């Protein structure tokens, strides 16, 4: 972490100013790719591709979109589902088009190792989930950052476990938000589980390929290999919960583990409660 008073042996250094905002390259540029690899132009292309899916295929509806901060950093956390999840691109597309703010999506570093796909992922706003990356985005660049604390445990789970939140890692997302001094904004996602339900998992194949899971999905059973690219048109609802602010001093070297865990569990419980309510109110998977 770039901490204040950074000189470890002190004394000699006079800190005239501590630039907390990293400076972009003011020189001649040929592209609009930023220091994270995101390109607004690429996002605009994606927006055109995604808009019909967003409006007509998934018919996304928001509840409490006004709770997403219109300025300053905020850590958006959501439940994660579907073998090849559509929740991340839909949330990013939705917030970027409805609020006009860029969203950086934290994801498994596996993406960085993929030729072509990894580059497109980065240009579209994907960032490897590293605590230093999250801190810099939230604190220094005051950006909206999307995280799925369940990670691949959420997307890899079987259809029989749908809408049951998995463990939230070790609560690292809470600690980052505390350190960066930003709120956590939980978002409950309904419908994502039905877009690509996992019927079975092949553990040996996953180990062999070095990926988190190799699923057999309902989409693949119905459509064959095409099922990999075809999520079912389930009705998607997003419910934004009240932002959680932590009453702690930012930029501490560490925060009490117990407190972090308690806060993470409270956010997890609130999300689970919201999912249960939305499930109870849902009349049809396809119509919502």
């Amino acid at each position, binding site marked *: 972490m770039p901490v204040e008073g950074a000189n470890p042996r002190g004394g*000699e*250094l006079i800190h005239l100013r501590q630039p907390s905002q*990293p400076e972009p*390259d003011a020189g001649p540029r*040929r*592209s609009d790719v930023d220091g994270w690899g995101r390109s607004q132009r690429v996002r605009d292309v994606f927006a055109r591709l995604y808009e019909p899916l967003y409006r007509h295929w998934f018919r996304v509806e928001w509840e409490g979109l006004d709770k997403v901060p219109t300025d300053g950093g905020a850590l958006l956390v959501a439940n994660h589902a579907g073998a090849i999840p559509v929740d991340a691109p839909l949330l990013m597309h939705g917030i970027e088009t409805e609020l006009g703010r860029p969203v950086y999506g934290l994801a498994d570093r596996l993406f960085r190792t993929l030729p072509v796909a990894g580059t497109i992922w980065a240009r579209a706003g994907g960032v490897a989930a590293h605590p*230093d990356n999250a801190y810099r985005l939230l604190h220094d660049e005051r950006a909206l950052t999307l995280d799925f604390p369940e990670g691949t445990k959420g997307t890899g789970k079987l259809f029989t476990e749908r809408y049951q939140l998995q463990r939230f890692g070790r609560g690292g997302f809470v600690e980052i938000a505390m350190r960066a001094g930003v709120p956590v904004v939980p978002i409950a996602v309904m419908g994502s589980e039905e877009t690509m339900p996992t019927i079975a998992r092949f553990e040996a194949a996953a180990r062999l390929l070095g990926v988190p899971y190799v699923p057999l999905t309902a989409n693949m059973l119905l459509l064959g290999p095409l099922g990999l690219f075809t999520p079912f048109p389930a009705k998607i609802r997003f419910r934004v919960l009240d932002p959680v602010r932590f009453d702690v001093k930012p930029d501490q070297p560490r925060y009490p583990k117990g407190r972090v865990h308690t806060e993470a569990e409270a956010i997890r419980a609130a999300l689970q409660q919201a999912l249960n309510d939305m499930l109870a109110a849902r009349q049809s998977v396809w119509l919502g």
Partner: protein
Amino acid sequence: MTGRAERPQRILVTGVGSYWGGSVAQALESDPDVEAVIGVDTSEPTIPLERTEFFRTDESFSTLGDVVAATDVDTVVHAALAVDSTRMADQRLHENNVIGTLNLLAALSQDGSSVGGVVVKSSALVYGAGPRDPYFFDEDARRSTRPRTRIERTLLEVESQLRDFVEERPEVRVAVLRFGDVVGNRGHTPLGRALTLPAVPQILGFDPLLQFVEQTDVVRALLFATGRRLSGAYNVAADGRLPWSELITLAGRVPMFLPPLFTGVALGPLAQAHVLDLPLEVRQVLRYGRGLDNRRLKAAGYTYRYTTSEAVLAQSQVRRKSSRRSVHSSEVRA
């Protein structure tokens, strides 16, 4: 540290035969407050020097103790570390970097040494490059990958020697400057040089974000750390982390695509024919990129002349322009 001059006055520069050491010595010469400049290297300086006293040494600086004792230096700029493995065989890397620094530190530890400050020119190679890395390394970051090349191991060993030295001799200030990839017509690292090739290597499907530093900014940073008597570790890389494809365009070149799998195997014959040598530590950067948090040195008061894009553009335009910006003596007191 009693009775020492406020400003460095008698300065020893290692690696004075190289562009880096030579340029530092040249700038120090024009500073009237600098009483003596002492240069050591295995070969004569290539940069024209006027009043620098030159001492020839073997490649591991085994005679440095005598030089330090005889010349009564108060500051050392250690610019002799090799950071480009394509320019030095593995065995010599070890002699030059590890044993060379060992002998330097031994010279500074001997009784009667009057050296109060050391500035070391190190490299961002100590961070490595891999998919688990943060996008911007700060000076306290640990590398996520195991060092697999000799150059990385020697530089890490040098930094560990320096940490031990700081513990043993807390009264001596040690500043370690970790430079990113360098572009320039005189001084450069393999990726900076790659941008001057007619077709620039790029791994197919990867477009990593890279950060460069211009050659004169490297020299200025060394002078700044010397004049400001800094201690601790500092990253030195210009603002701006740009896609490799964009840097190739800025340099006015076209890409030459390398296969994403078996990249090293594909490059083997080219390296043997001395057409293009991209060692592993460089190929990793071409795959994953590397970013440096440059705010600590800026907070200390250093200002860069070039951003990453300006630095790459300057290198590609330098052939047409004969007049180049040179480092001025006032940089020492910046």
